[in-house]
């Protein structure tokens, strides 16, 4: 195997209720990163520092139970305790990725869409938590599962136009119809970035399609790469070419 001059280091953030940390870590590892799972308490206490990492990943789950709204309590915590560190991290061009609950957190802290633009993720139009596979279109195409109750991307028309003009829409669902668009997201938006492209958030779970046999239709094939792995590889690539 070719040896990289320097491994990209990814911090997988944990907190009470985060539950996709293992498979998110696995995604970054398979894509070639060095990884570490860190509890948010250790960042707050200063025992661990963001500056030691190239990627900050906010995995899916139900941080603190999502009791007020999806991601809002962890967003509140990051805003109060770690905003400065995170701003510097983003300023340096390092990558922040939020998947599902992590995306909700990034939107509710305002890191996404960024630049003072306002968007939110709210209750699915169906009114229910739903778990199903969807097809994503965008920077790359992939089949991945969604599993959420609050994944409807919502913003005013002006903001939506601006996101599109800036090229900040990273992923869209394959159609405007339910269930292809599983939550009623405006303009079928499944994932966005900030204007600079180094803060990334999406509702679907690429970390659940790391191997071929994760896919519902490929159950008995030899286990090799799943489409979700590309997502992680692209992030690592971005870090290396930065």
């Amino acid at each position: 195997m070719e040896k990289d001059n320097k491994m990209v280091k990814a911090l997988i953030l944990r907190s009470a209720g985060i539950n996709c940390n293992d498979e998110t870590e696995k995604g970054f590892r398979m894509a070639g990163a060095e990884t570490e799972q860190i509890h948010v308490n250790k960042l707050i206490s200063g025992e661990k520092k963001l500056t030691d990492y190239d990627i900050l990943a906010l995995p899916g789950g139900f941080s603190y139970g999502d009791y007020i709204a999806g991601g809002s309590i962890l967003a509140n915590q990051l805003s109060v305790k770690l905003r400065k560190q995170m701003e510097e991290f983003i300023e340096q061009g390092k990558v922040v990725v939020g998947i599902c609950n992590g995306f909700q957190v990034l939107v509710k802290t305002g890191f996404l869409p960024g630049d003072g633009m306002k968007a939110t993720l709210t209750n699915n139009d169906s009114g229910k938590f739903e778990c199903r596979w969807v097809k994503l279109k965008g920077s790359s195409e992939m089949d991945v599962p969604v599993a959420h109750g609050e994944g409807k991307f919502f913003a005013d028309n002006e903001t939506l136009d601006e996101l599109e003009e800036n090229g900040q829409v990273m992923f869209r669902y394959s159609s405007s119809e339910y269930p292809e668009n599983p939550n009623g997201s405006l303009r079928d938006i499944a994932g966005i970035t900030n204007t600079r492209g180094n803060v990334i958030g999406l509702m679907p779970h690429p970390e659940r399609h790391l191997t071929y046999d994760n896919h519902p239709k490929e159950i008995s094939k030899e286990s090799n790469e799943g489409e979700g792995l590309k997502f992680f590889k692209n992030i690592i690539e971005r870090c290396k070419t930065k």
Partner: protein
Amino acid sequence: MRLEKLLQKKESSMKAVEVFSKEKTARDKAIEGSLADFGIKADVRVSDVYYIDSSFNDEEIKELAEGLFTDKLTQTFSTETSNKESEWIIEVRYKDAVSDPAEDSIIRAIRDLGKDAKTVRTAKRYYVTAADEKEVQLICKNILANGITEDYYYGYEELNAAEPRIMEGKASDEINEVGILDASDEGLQRISREGVLSLSLEEMKKIKEYFEKEGRNPRDGELETLAQTWSEHCKHKIFNSEIEFDNGKEKEIIGNLFKETIVAATNKIAAKKDWLVSVFKDNAGIINFDDKNNFAMKVETHNHPSALDPYGGASTGIGGVIRDVLGAGLGAKPVFNTDVFCFARSDYDKELPSGILHPKRIFKGVVSGVSDYGNRIGIPTVNGAIIFHDDFLGAPLVYCGTGGIIPKGMENKKASNGELIVVVGGKTGRDGLHGATFSSAILDESSSSSAVQIGNPIEEKKMLDALLQCRDQRLYTCITDCGAGGFSSAVGEMAASTGAEVELDKVQLKHAGMKPWEIWMSESQERMIIAVPEDKVEELKEVCRNEDVNAIVIGKFTDTKKLVVNHSGKTLVDLDMEFLHKGLPQLKRKANWQEKGEEEPQLEEKNNYNEELKKILAHPSVASKEEVIRRYDHEVQGNTIGKPMTGEGPSDAAIIRPEFGKKALVISNGINPRYSFINSYWMAASVIDEAMRNIVASGGDISRTALLDNFCWGSTQSEEKLGSLVMAAKACHDIAVDYETPFISGKDSFHNEFKSGNTTIAIPDTLLISAVSVIDATNAITMDLKEEGNSIYLVGKTYDELGGSHYYELLEKIGRNVPKVREAAKKNMESLTTAMKAGLVLSCHDCSEGGLAVAAAEMAFAGNIGMRINTAAIPNEIDKNYKLLFSESNSRFLVEVKKENEEEFEKITNATKIGETIGEKKLVIGDNLIDAGLDELKEAWKKTIKW
């Protein structure tokens, strides 16, 4: 006096923030839908209310409302009293004594903002355009609030709801003696009854005898400890009883039903199964998984609590079984959950006996409970079943299962003298007292109880995260969960061979005024007990602290062989372990048995059965469960390679490949209570066969499969009922030995009856068999037809076996010819597995409820490919066409094979080619027996369960 009162009031007063959605939401519409179920047409808007204790001024409350509680894009807020013109306002919230799962998280968020809140309670407010007060009361009682766990308030145009009270505070130190030494037999029975102890006279006498020797009366804590330890729930007295059994032909004495059936089967097979690791002795059964890991599994029931509060009952059911697996060996990491339910039909329209919730409400509540708890804790819910029969009206069944992975070498545990008793997890409250003794009794209209709680999945998730780290650092030597009986059961069991001394003062409490025995017996959720060597305790606390988890030392293991519990310097419990665990007298019972059922119906033949097939497909037990399955996260952890649904079709089993390794687990179940109306022996045999069929159809291997049994019966007081249990247990033994599939764990739940006035509704005798097989991940098979032009084979013979079938249910008949399990079954399954491993099988599905016709339809739905079957080719021993279509004979599979592989497939298996896949999207069976478009059939199948 007056002043004091005022001050108190001020101290306890709370501030409220109410958050409104700007637009009408899906949640509003869902409530309108629930109202419509009751024939009420109303406009509904829902808001969220947060009560926060009074230490904040109005400005601070506004800041919180704006910064924390409100999403400005979609919501607005108010901190004023609620009012709205010409509308009813209803508030629903948990009773003050019921833990609100949101509280800790919100307190934490407020603390992050640099402020300190002691108490936070959440509520929902509903603005409803109802007709009158009567209708509002109905809405409150029957739709919005559950009186067991929730309070409601309502008002017209203005709401004045009472404020939540702060419950936390100090314990009481009241310990009472119970005068049993002087009590007559009648007195002993009265003490048992009034104390909800569920102890029989004979058991009370044993206890009296013990305390006579001790020369004193028992304290309340001692009697409670004995009642719990000796409860049916914990000791399985009925299953362990000595039974004089008469099957109508001969009599026999069964020394111990459980040991001579279930355990005996495993013992007979064990020598051939070197992969059995730990069976019947721990919280869960443990088998070998791969080079590095073992696998642990447990399935539990949570029936009684789910009848009273479906949401809370189901959520705590899952929480409990997860802790069983976390408490197996030194702790297994949960990798999947399973859920199986039995309800009365959702369209039940007769009058409900008082004290019973409508079955649709139970169904919805249970599914929400599973969804909210299982999804939040991050364990995929991958397998299940939902069975509908109106005999479950008063006593629905809720089975919850969990499987986990545990590193090899961690399967054994032992607490030793001198080690510390540490409680990890949530606080202890008054919630859930008497769960063990409560579930050992029959429900009636007055059963309202503190036995129901609301689960807190985040508390459990934190505890799980912390404990698995502690496990890997070897910081504890023994672990068990606090389930029924709370500390009393957990400490009592862990210290059974050593002894223990507990100081209850150290326990963190949720509720003021708890008596010592209540602390000791509390069944508050999300707590585990571990044994920690003294030199490891600081390290352990540090790990827990970082995960925001409480870990508190509450005592020590000793070598006294005594269970001693103290509170504020006084003794609450001082019992010999020997008496506590072995003093219970064995039950001696009589049982008899004879086959039930009716005459076998003789039916006219018809030319076409499209309508019958559609009706069976629309039966809720057969119908698509997509509405439910999608509410569960079955993909979290990224290991689900066999999904609960294949396309739109129902998968036979789930397949989980933990740790991204090469091995996978196939998980299935079998359940079919209708056969019990005829013969519980063949019911049990059939459900084992069904679980095995599901395993084999998915690529599982019968030789590497373990079983778990869960018996749910009504009262076994009558000799006939006990007899049907004996027969079912005998079938478990016989079939498990035939198939060489050992039982590794199980559970039983009796008293699943409901009494209202003079009527008793008992459930049908119900056995759930869960099966798990370890396979190479690449051997997995799915049930969806893959392409047109392939051959369809049938494995197994079709007999005249419609007794208890869905076809007869359409005609409101039961019949007599219940499906049997025959000798050829095992060989057929083995050869099918061989063919699968050779890569000859494209898809496979078993024939179960609804028979061949339903199985064929489901395969076609899943692949969206048509199928044609030639009835003349079907190997059978029957005379009529409807029997070919709908007989539910066991051990049969439909298999899709490529034409070029026919010869090889036929060489390996004993299968018959009966049809082919076709280009047209139709199902055609025989000349015209079935001839229907897939869309038409699918519509029937998908319309039943839709919310």
